[in-house]
């Protein structure tokens, strides 16, 4: 198993925060700034876990999750997807899980929780305190 994590997120501040946090644990972060690029990256790259923002500028995170789950790339049916969203609007969590996400997290993303959630699926190559 590799340690490649794809983060689909349009907010550069969140992207930077998560990149720094995950790279500190030895993960490699692949970045996609919108939903369509995210789906394309998931299909073209070796990805071990996907962090998925729900509020994206083109297709929303639910649609991204559905497309990933129905991809012809067999591995994407099983790749763990952690949904993250800033606006915990009514039913967001239910919708995320029914679209194919495995876990739902609301922003702000607590980095220690993120580490724990990611590590539950992909062991950290370089665990630090």
């Amino acid at each position, binding site marked *: 198993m590799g340690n490649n994590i794809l983060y689909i997120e349009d907010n550069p501040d969140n992207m930077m925060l998560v990149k720094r946090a995950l790279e500190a644990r030895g993960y490699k972060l692949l970045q996609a700034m919108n939903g369509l690029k995210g789906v394309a990256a998931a299909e073209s790259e070796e990805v071990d876990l996907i962090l998925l923002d729900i509020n994206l500028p083109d297709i929303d995170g639910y649609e991204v999750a559905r497309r990933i789950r129905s991809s012809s790339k067999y591995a994407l049916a099983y790749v763990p997807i952690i949904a993250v969203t800033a*606006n*915990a609007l009514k039913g967001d969590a239910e919708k995320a899980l029914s679209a194919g996400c495995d876990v739902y997290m609301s922003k702000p993303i607590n980095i220690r*929780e993120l580490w724990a959630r990611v590590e539950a699926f992909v062991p950290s190559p370089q665990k630090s305190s």
Partner: protein
Amino acid sequence: MQNKLKTPEKTSYLADLQCSGCGSIYSAAEVHTFCPDCQSPLLVNYDLNAARQHVDRNEIHSRLKGMWRWHELLPICETQNMVTLGEGDTALLHLPRVGKSLGLTNLFVKEESSNPTGSFKARGLSAAVSKAKELGIQKVIIPTAGNAGGAMAAYAARANMKAMIYMPKDTPSANIIESRIAGAEVILVDGIISDAAGMAGETARKEGWFDVSTFKEPYRMEGKKIMGYELAEAFNWELPDVIIYPTGGGTGLVGMWKAFEELEQLGWLNNTKRPRMVSVQAEGCAPVVQAFEKKAAFCDFWINAKTIASGLRVPKSFADHLILASLYESNGIAIAVSDASITESQNELAKAEGIFAAPEGAATLAALKELVKKKWIRADERVVMFNTGSGLKYLDNLG
């Protein structure tokens, strides 16, 4: 121990803010929300060594009643910034009849309904609005399950600040009315507190309001922690054996745990044995209970949260890891109770002891009954339940 060095009076021994996750230190003289690096709640540090030398617990006892008599351990540096409506120093009532029915000789309730606005939320919002005033903030925003909104509206009015409140549209009408009459702009949300939090956060970012959401600013917990100081004082500077606390956002639970640590460092406790902390949630929204049973460090977001105890309808606290840590460290427990048992306990408290408790407060009695059945509590242990608010604010629920 009470022969203290006399020094010029210091209003507060506030030192700085520290991230509960990564330990980073931030200035308490600046406006902060939560840690920008790891996005964990910030906790308030005090110079407890200096306080230990110069503050006399007996002198505090002799002051005028109220939360602010503990001002050295609260974060406000100038007395004119303390925004008070007379919060704190709520009664600690012995419950002889309910205790007898459960075979307990030392059962108490901390009756928080006597706070301004009828709930324990007054404590936290008094501290938070006071600090906001001290930091020059003029408009405050909050998502709420009800009582925190009412409290914020009242304290913001008292401080001449603008207030905006997002609350679920099915929030008890008392909370909506008390917020609006105090001049707050109230936005009713089709959803629960997590939905309100998303919207309030967005408005705060776009329009420059200061967000006083639970644990997303450091000071509400400081007001709540005083419940722990009051308990220590009431028990002659010892702590009870068990504290049973209804848990939504968890500010009080985490705050009291912080208070016990501070009390120990101050050298004010005659016996440093800590209570076992009990977190009570509703079966229809029990993320802490679920995480506790899995021995997890964080809660999963609770989907489709439903309970008559609106204050317990919190699908995930921003400080879930701190709540869970206090339960683990105290050898405590988390327990979920049904709405039916909450209603039954609400009736029992009123009939047996004359206490018309909020459903959240009644939930603590429902939990206590389960704990007695499990023999988790000994007959002679000192047990304190928290009634966090007045049942009068929930008349809608009683139809």
